[in-house]
């Protein structure tokens, strides 16, 4: 029997892994500088949102499924990050 091809999502996922590592380091660096403020907060949260989408789409493979499934996770992500942002602005008074 022929050997099945190596699934070609591996390469994409390796790049995604690398990107996730870099983004994590950026978040950590921002944390270490002790910066605060709206722009910093939005950057950090935005980074997290992008990372979650990467994991959901590539690692979890949702980009190869019907939009319904992707939409549930994306909708959840937008809702949660949106409410976190609202709470942050509320904290500024």
């Amino acid at each position, binding site marked *: 029997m022929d050997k*099945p091809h190596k699934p070609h999502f591996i390469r994409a996922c390796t790049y995604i892994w690398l990107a996730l590592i870099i983004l994590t*380091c950026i978040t950590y660096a921002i944390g270490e500088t002790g910066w605060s403020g709206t722009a910093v907060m939005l950057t950090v*949260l935005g980074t997290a949102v992008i990372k979650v989408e990467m994991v*959901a789409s590539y*690692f979890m493979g949702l980009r*190869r*499924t019907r939009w319904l499934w992707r939409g549930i996770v994306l909708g*959840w992500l937008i809702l949660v990050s949106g409410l976190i942002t609202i*709470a942050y602005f509320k904290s500024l008074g």
Partner: protein
Amino acid sequence: MINNPKVTHEIHATPPGDLAIWVFIFAELLAFGVFFVAYAFARANNVELFNESQQHLNRTSGAINTLVLITSSYFMVRAVAAIKQGLSKPCALWIASAIGLGFVFLAIKIAEFQATFAAGISLSTNTFYMFYLSLTLFHFMHVILGMVILAAIMLKALRGGYSAENHIGVETGASYWHMVDLLWIILFPLVYVIR
């Protein structure tokens, strides 16, 4: 038919793994989501307390743990890829590596908890620590549960229980493990970094 490279471009009706695990994953996302939002609003009412207490967290161990989980998650991607080629042994090896990193995560986390409890901090210290401890403890339990699931799958893979045609079990475990990673990706910046 497996040789057809187009196979991977296909749009699937359901996400990878058993649909039941996805019902479970969505419920978990909902539970954590509610907790994340509750944290954010509790913080809005106690900004100073939260910012002050957050200073005492060990951001470095939190960041290392993020890297550990992301890498572990990536190993599960490789495990699924391996079994899709019918390679049981490499699949089991990738899963074993993912579990190994799971232990690293737990060890770092335990050290962090130990330092926290040694400082006399408990759930009742203040609202920030209540959230910090319960969110991370709750996530900690999920890491353990994920590792148990992965271990069961690894043993079955070692026995040759999966094949290129039948590997839904591996995908089920991988999906759950990715969720554990996904939640930590939000938890870390939310609790350790954002101020």
